[in-house]
């Protein structure tokens, strides 16, 4: 019987099915409601006065002319807001000896990056606020600027934060096995210095916030384009001294986030204080130039790494020295060292060597903060590891697939602990590698490459394996003292008409959280998914939780919904059993009916159970309490992270005369555990891969020596467009985690984790016959021409 009936053929089977997103219809008709669209009665608008210097003392701030402008309600200085807002410090306890200085919404005595907000104007319209902001007169005394990643650590360098006495925020040394012996015993060593350009998230909707402080109720309501409303409820409460229960953060439709919209931004904190000062709602929307200046950047790394192998290409050890520059402060509350920490811990992750040394130095510089952005640290660890693997393959005369096959962690080795301490429950490197090889038709590409080279056409094939960190447990932030939740909560209820509502703490930013939660709840309760309404993003309404970061939506949010729905089903069947005088265990739910579990015969409708429970509980036995609402919270308790894995392939053609690269093809074999909605996972992976390709070829926040951002607009900071990007073929391998019943892990970082690495390897493969090589991204035409000896 089992053989003929597919699981997906059963009624209300949605887990694993590519269903469409109900909420997409709203967005497709222009009826999305983003914070940028919102207007409250008597709302005022804020604009900020920003420092033109990357490092300077503030001598004076004169707001008098700005206050004269008609329509201006107030002008606030750093001192004004410092009276209301407690400072914050971006350190975590488990990063031993980490340093950063206290931050306030607006600069008080000095500025440390060009674009830092110094004063705020609140006016009747944004245009008036901007007019008046130009009239705020700030006197500065310039200080020496530190921009270079190495110069920051040099003897005699200007110290950005004199109270810390150093420009080093954090240093870490990881040592495992005997790396010196491994290198001494090796037959081949490859080494290289890699440079990764600063880039930024560029969400299409810029940061936006409306703070509405009601003094009569001591109530703060904040409409905030954020991924993490609960985190901000906590922060606004603590830093402004408002009772937590009276802080409501609402995150409606969010126009892209990618990790960028979970950090504390100075302007956002300021807006809360400005609303308290004005006694009215205050809105701030970053314009695109402000986004480039003040959104977090990421990936500013210089890595020197070496790999040692025996003559057969078996890796014996790896040494890594990562220096990362983070701006003048560490960001809050997640800190700016998480990326570097993940870089040195993810190095070599797919491979089974035991001898490793990782050095990390996190340094300050006079630029805006860097912090977590999609696939934190992964692209750097992956690019370094995979570029060295290719180099090693060339040196020992192996094909790139073959050297990986020889070194990956194989099925018989799990559970496996990496030399950097990560515990892998079960990954699927062998299967992914084999599938990618087939999917790409690798032998055909290699043959074509050889044939075309004779005609002066340079094509390259690059592959890159990755391990992705998802579903972090409290070991990630909680142990470091950060008030960032690793658990999530769901409330599922049956309405009196027998429909279902699920309020859940994970949010929806377009990735499809609402859809997959609806699928999970509908399948568990045996109802049509159209009858399940999923509600997210309001701290007054939805249960407390960590919300969206580090790919927690399906793995943690999904499991929470799964368990909540299961509990609710038990309750429904308990009530139905009393009504039908049947054992709950003999009943089941299907198509919104209570059925006999054995035969599928309909006994009564779910709507009748609900109607009786809510309106005629007098007819139920007195020991039956009709609990048709359940709340459930879930936090990972097994492995500290649910690691996912995969491998990507990239096919490029480099025009060796112009330095332009065309991406001909992209393939991804990935394993995110149980796939809840293949279409949505495909799109997550594709979108992620494109962000990695952007980093590989276009995206870089370029600064002058004086710390001025030189390309702060979408006209000169290039993001990938449709014409430059390829179709991406995707294949899923499913290795569910056994830590949860659902078995899902995350998939949001997977695309970004390895696509830059695959692209670097492809370009280097293309230009290798010309004796050229690149180890810096983005691989701009200019850099490629330089590598080719043309410039």
């Amino acid at each position, binding site marked *: 019987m089992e053989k003929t009936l597919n699981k997906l053929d059963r009624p209300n089977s949605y887990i694993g099915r590519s269903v469409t997103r109900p909420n997409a219809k709203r967005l*497709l008709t*222009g009826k999305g409601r983003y914070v940028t669209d919102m207007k409250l009665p008597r709302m005022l608008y804020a604009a900020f006065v920003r420092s033109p210097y990357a490092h300077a003392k503030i001598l004076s701030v004169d707001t008098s002319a700005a206050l004269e402008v008609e329509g201006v309600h107030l002008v606030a200085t750093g001192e004004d807001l410092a009276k209301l807002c407690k400072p914050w410090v971006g350190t975590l306890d488990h990063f031993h000896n980490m340093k950063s200085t206290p931050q306030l919404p607006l600069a008080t005595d000095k500025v440390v990056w060009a674009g830092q907000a110094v004063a705020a104007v609140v006016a009747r319209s944004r245009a008036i606020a901007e007019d008046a902001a130009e009239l705020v007169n700030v006197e500065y005394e310039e200080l020496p600027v530190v921009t270079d990643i190495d110069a920051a650590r040099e003897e005699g360098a200007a110290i950005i934060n004199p109270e810390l006495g150093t420009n080093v925020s954090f240093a870490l040394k990881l040592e495992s096995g005997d790396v010196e012996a491994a290198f001494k015993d090796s037959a081949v060593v490859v080494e290289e210095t890699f440079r990764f350009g600063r880039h930024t998230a560029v969400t299409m909707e810029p940061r936006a916030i409306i703070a509405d402080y009601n003094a009569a109720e001591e109530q703060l309501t904040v409409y905030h384009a954020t991924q993490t409303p609960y985190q901000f409820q906590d922060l606004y409460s603590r830093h402004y001294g408002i009772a937590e229960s009276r802080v409501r953060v609402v995150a409606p439709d969010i126009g892209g986030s990618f990790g960028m919209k979970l950090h504390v931004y100075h302007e956002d904190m300021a807006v809360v204080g400005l609303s308290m000062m004005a006694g009215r709602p205050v809105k701030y929307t970053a314009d*695109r130039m402000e986004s480039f200046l003040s959104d977090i950047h990421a990936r500013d790394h210089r890595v020197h790494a070496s790999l040692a192998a025996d003559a057969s290409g078996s890796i014996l050890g790896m040494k890594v020295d990562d220096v990362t520059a983070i701006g003048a402060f560490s960001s809050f509350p997640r800190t700016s060292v998480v990326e570097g920490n993940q870089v040195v811990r993810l190095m070599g992750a797919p491979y089974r060597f035991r001898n490793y040394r990782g050095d990390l130095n996190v340094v300050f510089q006079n630029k805006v903060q860097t912090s977590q952005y999609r696939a934190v640290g992964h692209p750097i660890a992956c690019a370094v590891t995979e570029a060295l693997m290719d180099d090693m393959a060339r040196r020992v005369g192996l094909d790139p697939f073959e050297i990986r096959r020889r070194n990956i962690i194989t099925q018989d080795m799990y559970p496996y602990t990496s030399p950097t301490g990560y515990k892998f429950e079960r990954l699927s490197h062998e299967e992914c590698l084999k599938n990618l090889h087939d999917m790409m038709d690798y032998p055909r590409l290699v043959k074509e490459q050889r044939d075309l080279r004779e005609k002066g056409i340079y094509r390259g094939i690059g592959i890159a394996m990755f391990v992705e960190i998802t579903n972090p447990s409290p070991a990630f932030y909680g142990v470091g003292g950060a008030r960032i939740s690793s658990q999530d909560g769901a409330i599922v209820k049956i309405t009196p008409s027998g429909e279902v509502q699920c309020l859940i703490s994970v949010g929806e930013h377009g990735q499809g959280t609402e859809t997959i939660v609806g699928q999970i709840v509908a399948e568990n309760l045996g109802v049509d998914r159209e009858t399940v309404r999923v509600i997210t993003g309001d701290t007054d309404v939805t249960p407390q939780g960590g919300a969206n970061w580090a790919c927690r939506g399906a793995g943690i949010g999904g499991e929470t919904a799964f368990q909540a729905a299961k509990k609710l089903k038990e309750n429904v069947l308990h009530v139905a059993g009393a009504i039908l005088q049947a054992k709950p265990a003999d009943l089941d739910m299907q198509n919104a009916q209570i059925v006999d579990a054995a035969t599928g015969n309909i006994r009564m409708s779910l709507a009748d159970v609900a109607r009786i429970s809510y309106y005629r509980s007098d007819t139920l036995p007195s020991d039956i309490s009709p609990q048709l609402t359940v709340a459930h919270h879930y936090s990972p308790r097994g492995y500290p992270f649910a690691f996912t894995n995969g491998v990507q392939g990239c096919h490029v053609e480099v025009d060796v005369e112009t330095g332009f690269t065309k991406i001909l093809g992209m393939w991804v074999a990935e394993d995110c555990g149980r796939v809840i909605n293949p279409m949505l996972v495909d799109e997550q992976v594709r979108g992620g891969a494109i962000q990695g390709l952007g980093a590989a070829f276009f995206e870089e926040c370029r600064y002058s020596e004086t710390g001025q951002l030189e390309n702060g607009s979408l006209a000169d900071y290039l993001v990938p467009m449709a014409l430059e990007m390829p179709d991406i073929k995707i294949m899923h391998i499913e290795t569910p985690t056994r830590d949860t019943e659902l078995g899902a892990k995350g998939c949001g970082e997977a695309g970004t984790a390895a696509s830059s690495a695959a692209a670097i390897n492809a370009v280097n493969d293309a230009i290798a016959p010309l004796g050229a090589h690149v180890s810096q991204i983005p691989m701009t035409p200019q850099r490629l021409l330089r590598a080719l000896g043309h410039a």
Partner: protein
Amino acid sequence: MSERVPIALEVNGETVARTIEPRMSLADFLREELELTGTHLGCEMGVCGACLVLLNGKAVHACLMFAVQAHGERVETVEGLTERKAIADIQEAFHNNNALQCGFCTTGMLVTAHEMLSRGDILSREEIRDGLSGNYCRCTGYQAIVNSIETVAQARAVAGAAPSKPE
């Protein structure tokens, strides 16, 4: 700077009249004055395409025009195109293919797709990708968007002309 001037124009088939500051952009006018927030602002310099609207039937960047320049003209936004069902098939294809994630660029994408498809030719994937080059999307990999437009192009071609050969 803030002396206000009267303007009157047709927006989504209705005549609207307002007195506004001359420096107000058409995008701000649509969003702030008319509450037509389907027109989004991503870059405010005519690069990202999120603010595209139709001006007398042609796609223009609402962020690059002053509202006063639209005086006496005919403007249609995604809300208007939706209401008169001019893009229903495109919206359906986008929905079925999940050709959007956060949705912020989507309304501009739809205006571009509408204009591209109104030309009536069956478009190749390369042509569709080229035509989308003024529309940035940060969430998708563009592929589902290209698929959707291709699907509609083919369906409209079949519906518009008796198919000569099956495929």
